[in-house]
């Protein structure tokens, strides 16, 4: 996998955009997912994920090819998400998906006659609750938790992505876990 990506990167450096398309195909879901969990809505997630790929393309020459491409790409995406969170004004789109749910928008929050099966509703509610609690975390804990438990990355990789010492990453994950525990203990 990494070998294919390395080959494609060489083609991209020569200016081949089709090769970059293949790279986007490989990583689009994980980058989008990362952004979605960091930001909590699909409009922003798509916007930031696209921006991350765009930045990667423009700066591809500065990518050190001895490193893992995904580490570099996740670093760009995480930084963009953190920037967005800091600038964020409280905003709501009525057609924006409700945090932590798929295909559920604010329209569907308006009571409807048809009811979802109880189990499905429960799981949707749980996902929504968990996503809400993730979004309540300060961004420095949020990024560490999302990379660890949503992207399933190792502590070492997270330390590279966030450009922080391993000890700091651990502390952030511990604090994030503790904050989530307090919020989710009665769920």
């Amino acid at each position, binding site marked *: 996998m990494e070998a294919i990506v390395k080959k494609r990167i060489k083609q991209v450096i*020569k*200016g*081949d*955009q*089709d090769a*970059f*398309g293949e790279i*986007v*195909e490989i990583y*689009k*879901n994980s*980058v*989008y*997912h990362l952004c*979605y*969990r960091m930001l909590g809505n*699909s409009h922003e*997630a*798509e916007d930031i*994920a*696209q921006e991350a*790929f*765009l930045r990667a*393309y*423009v700066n591809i020459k500065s990518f050190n090819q001895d490193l893992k491409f995904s580490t570099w790409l996740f670093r760009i995406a995480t930084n963009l998400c953190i920037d967005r969170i800091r600038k964020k004004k409280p905003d709501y789109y009525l057609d924006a998906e409700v945090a*932590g749910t*798929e295909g559920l928008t604010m329209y569907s929050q308006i009571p409807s006659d048809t009811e979802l099966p109880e189990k499905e509703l429960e799981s949707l509610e*749980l*996902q929504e609750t*968990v*996503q809400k609690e*993730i979004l309540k975390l300060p961004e420095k804990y949020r990024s560490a*938790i999302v990379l660890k*438990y*949503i992207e*399933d990355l190792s*502590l070492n990789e997270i330390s590279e992505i966030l450009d922080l010492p391993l000890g700091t990453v*651990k502390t952030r*994950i*511990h604090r994030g*876990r*503790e904050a*989530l*525990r307090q*919020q*989710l*203990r009665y*769920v």
Partner: protein
Amino acid sequence: MCPEQIIELMHEYLDDEIDPAKERALREHLRGCKDCEALFNELKKSIAFVKSMSHMQAPDDFTANVLARLPKEKKQVLMARWLKNHPIMSAASLFVVLMAGSLLSTWNHEREFSVSKQENLVVENNTVIVPEGEVVKGDVLVRNGTLRIEGEVQGDVTVINGEQYLASAGRVTGEIEEVNEVFDWIWYHMKRTAKEVVGVFDTETK
């Protein structure tokens, strides 16, 4: 409240970085301390919740949208891709280039004076003379030299990269042709090849 170092051990355990001795100490403590056990379970539960979050898929048009936002591609890449996608055209253009190259190199090689062999032709310093009163039979070909015709040539006359003078008394029964420029020369080659091909068929039918 539970001792701080036990909570530290829980985190080490959750990070998969606990050593066996410490893990034993942790388990020992948890067996005797209900509060710590509850806290440990809550931590594990919240992690399980976060991990159970469904995986989001990027929208279908995601890649297309990214590519649409990229700056314009370099020309040489477009060219390379065009050649890759049009193999026959690439082969054809390569053929044309090679053909032109080989013809040009032949042109450059044949800079030396030469003349077709006929007995009664007189050669003086790159000038070929068909003497007065003589009759030269067959086609006359002169390269890189001058041809003066004072007598009669029974056949075609071709001068490549040179000049021919036809004296008033001179006579040529066939065609007279002067070839000087590269393109003329290529044209001449093509015509000759065509004639030869036709000639082959002619002799066959005869």
